[in-house]
């Protein structure tokens, strides 16, 4: 490669230097305020089940941190003392929209931290851009393992386990609770999330159960199809004992109402890997006896965890928004807390001075701390990918209090459901999940 003088410097010499000033980012110095951008779906189908609860979770925690109202050990006000201004942006509109929007956040609106993102496709599309723009970004919810499998990342963290854990834990749960059921079919949306979820679940089942019998006709309807009459018929005629689904949002709720009245859940055990997001939305309409996941230890599955942080989170959320926090609320709150943890620790390491971005990154790298519902351990991808335990349960409506609940809740340690560094998810599962510690 040739070395070429910076074009922009040359151009600046011959034209005006004044215009250039906007392009240079300010050096880090002591601040009394930082800007945190929180992208989440605010419009479209994912707004209700994900975006709005996510936004609420982030908003509530940012407010509490600014006011110094979080329980110990996070009661110090601010991010390294600085108050945060939250900027909420819509994640809808596709990747081609989100890439320039991310650029705007960093270069035009000059935010310090970006914490959020739900769509895997968007996270994957943004990853190279984030590395190029070099701004601390904490992915909160998106699940694709690709982010850190493709390349090492310096500026990206992900504060929850990736999607492989959900599918692997689902298979473990089924094997533990229903060792006599071997045959299963699936209904998953025909896009990357649905395809990956089914693949990982199917592969794991085949590893854990020598008699595993996947159906030949698994359903992949189009996302947002809404009408599942034919699919429910086809699955009713199928002999499989279990149905796996990674449906979410309106599709999931439509599917549950249509399948419930047609008795599908009486004939087959349903495993809904993201059913947790629908639990409170469906309320009494969520039938009993469904195996429910929430993409980790979040939402309805950990509502009754008796820790100071969790109790604070659940009660404050319910007071402020009128419902219990669902998975995305927890996940976004966790991403914000990661930033808080990073800033505070970096300040301590920096002798009490306000840290610069590199110091915050160094502080988060490999960190292990208590979040609202679980322990977050940035153990993978050189300390950038968090691992947490995973959990499944079975729905049981609590008619006494008039709210949905879960029974038979089982937790699986992080080391059991996440692949170790250096192996892709599929290789790891196919290789028999070596190194998994499940007890």
């Amino acid at each position, binding site marked *: 490669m040739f070395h070429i003088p910076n074009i922009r410097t040359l151009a600046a010499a011959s034209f005006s230097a004044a215009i250039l000033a906007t392009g240079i980012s300010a050096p880090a110095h002591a601040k009394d305020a930082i800007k945190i951008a929180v992208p989440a779906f605010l419009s479209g*189908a994912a707004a209700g089940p994900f975006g709005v609860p996510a936004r609420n979770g982030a908003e509530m925690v940012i407010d509490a941190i600014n006011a110094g109202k979080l329980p110990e050990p996070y009661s110090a006000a601010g991010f390294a003392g600085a108050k945060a201004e939250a900027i909420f942006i819509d994640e809808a509109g596709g990747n081609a929209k989100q890439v320039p929007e991310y650029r705007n956040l960093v270069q035009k609106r000059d935010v310090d931290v970006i914490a959020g993102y739900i769509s895997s496709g968007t996270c994957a599309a943004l990853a190279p851009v984030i590395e190029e723009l070099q701004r601390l970004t904490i992915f909160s919810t998106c699940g694709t393992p690709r982010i850190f499998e493709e390349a090492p990342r310096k500026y990206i963290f992900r504060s929850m386990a990736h999607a492989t854990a959900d599918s692997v834990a689902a298979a473990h749960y089924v094997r533990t609770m229903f060792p006599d059921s071997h045959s299963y079919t699936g209904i998953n949306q025909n896009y990357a999330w649905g395809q990956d979820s089914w693949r990982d679940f199917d592969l794991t089942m085949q590893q854990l159960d020598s008699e595993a019998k996947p159906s030949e006709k698994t359903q992949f309807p189009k996302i947002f199809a*809404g*009408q599942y009459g034919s699919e429910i*018929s086809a699955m*009713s005629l199928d002999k499989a004992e279990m149905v796996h689904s990674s449906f979410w949002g309106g599709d999931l709720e*439509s599917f549950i109402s249509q399948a419930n009245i047609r008795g599908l859940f009486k004939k087959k055990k349903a495993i809904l890997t993201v059913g947790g997001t629908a639990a409170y939305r469906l309320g009494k309409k969520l039938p009993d006896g469904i195996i429910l996941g929430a993409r980790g230890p979040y939402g309805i599955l950990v509502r009754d965890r008796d820790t100071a942080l969790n109790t604070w989170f659940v009660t404050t959320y319910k007071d402020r928004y009128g419902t219990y926090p669902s998975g995305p609320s927890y996940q976004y709150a966790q991403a914000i807390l990661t930033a808080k943890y990073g800033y505070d620790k970096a300040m301590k390491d920096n002798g009490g001075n306000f840290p610069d971005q590199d110091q915050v990154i160094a502080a988060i790298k490999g960190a292990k701390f208590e979040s609202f519902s679980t322990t977050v351990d940035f153990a993978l991808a050189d300390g950038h990918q968090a691992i947490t335990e995973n959990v499944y349960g079975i729905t049981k409506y609590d008619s006494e209090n008039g709210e949905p609940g879960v029974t038979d809740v089982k937790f699986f340690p992080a080391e059991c459901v996440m692949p170790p560094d250096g192996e892709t998810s599929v290789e790891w599962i196919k290789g028999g999940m070596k190194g998994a510690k499940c007890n």
Partner: protein
Amino acid sequence: MDFNTALTILIDGLEFSSYLFIVSVGLTLVFGVMKILNVAHANFYAWGAYMAAWLIGRWTNMGFSEGSTFLMIAVATIVVGLVLGYLVERCVLRYMYERDEVVTVLATFALFLILEDAILLIFGVDPYFADQPMFALGSIDIGGITRTVYGLTMIAVAIVVGIGLWLLLTKTTWGRLLIAVIHDREMSISMGINVKRVYIVTFILGAMLGALGGAYVAPTISVAPGFAVDVVVLSFAVVAIGGMGSIPGAIIGALIVGIARAIAVHNFPQVELFVVFAVMAIVLVFKPEGLFAPERSRKI
């Protein structure tokens, strides 16, 4: 394939075809008469569903029986069709009649964007459930599997809509005027037909049919943002296959797509995603204007 499977495929196909027919017949009617491909048809569908779900919720809260919720479906259909249909035609479309067909499509695309966000602002992001009508009718076993009676009534509704439109078009004076306008607009004007009035009545009728589709489907789904986007493309495919502007075409298009999809779901679920568009492309390659396109005269 055993008898039960064949029967199931047939009923699944018919149910889905009925759904497709109800949501697309309004589109084809409006196109036939007004030469407008109305992208905002999806909004009538969405608004119909929201209105029905909201009304059903209110109605049952007021203590009325589940069975009477069907009334609310009818109310939602009429209210949305009349109000929204009237507003869209009067405020936007009537200024578009002299413009290019494709510009009009874009105008309806703009309306689509506006009305889609308007729903979000008015009804919020949380889902509406209104499954009382579905539960009121219960379920029955046919061919070894359980079905909802409500799903079967969809077939009846489609037949009623089809026959109703046929009677309207062939047995009433207004219907004959409509057919005259479909065949030759300029000639109709010179014969003294008030085409503007025909237009607005047609558009409101089309809007009602769209709203009926949404209102009737509402009890079976979670009415939440974004659920209607897919309906645009799906109903386009149906009317393109059948021949745009033809009501028998919409019936045949809906049957072909519905049954093809049911066969795919039961036998080759992996190809379900492009069945609809593959059928559409094949039909259009051989019958450029669809199976039942009304004849168009070449003008010199």
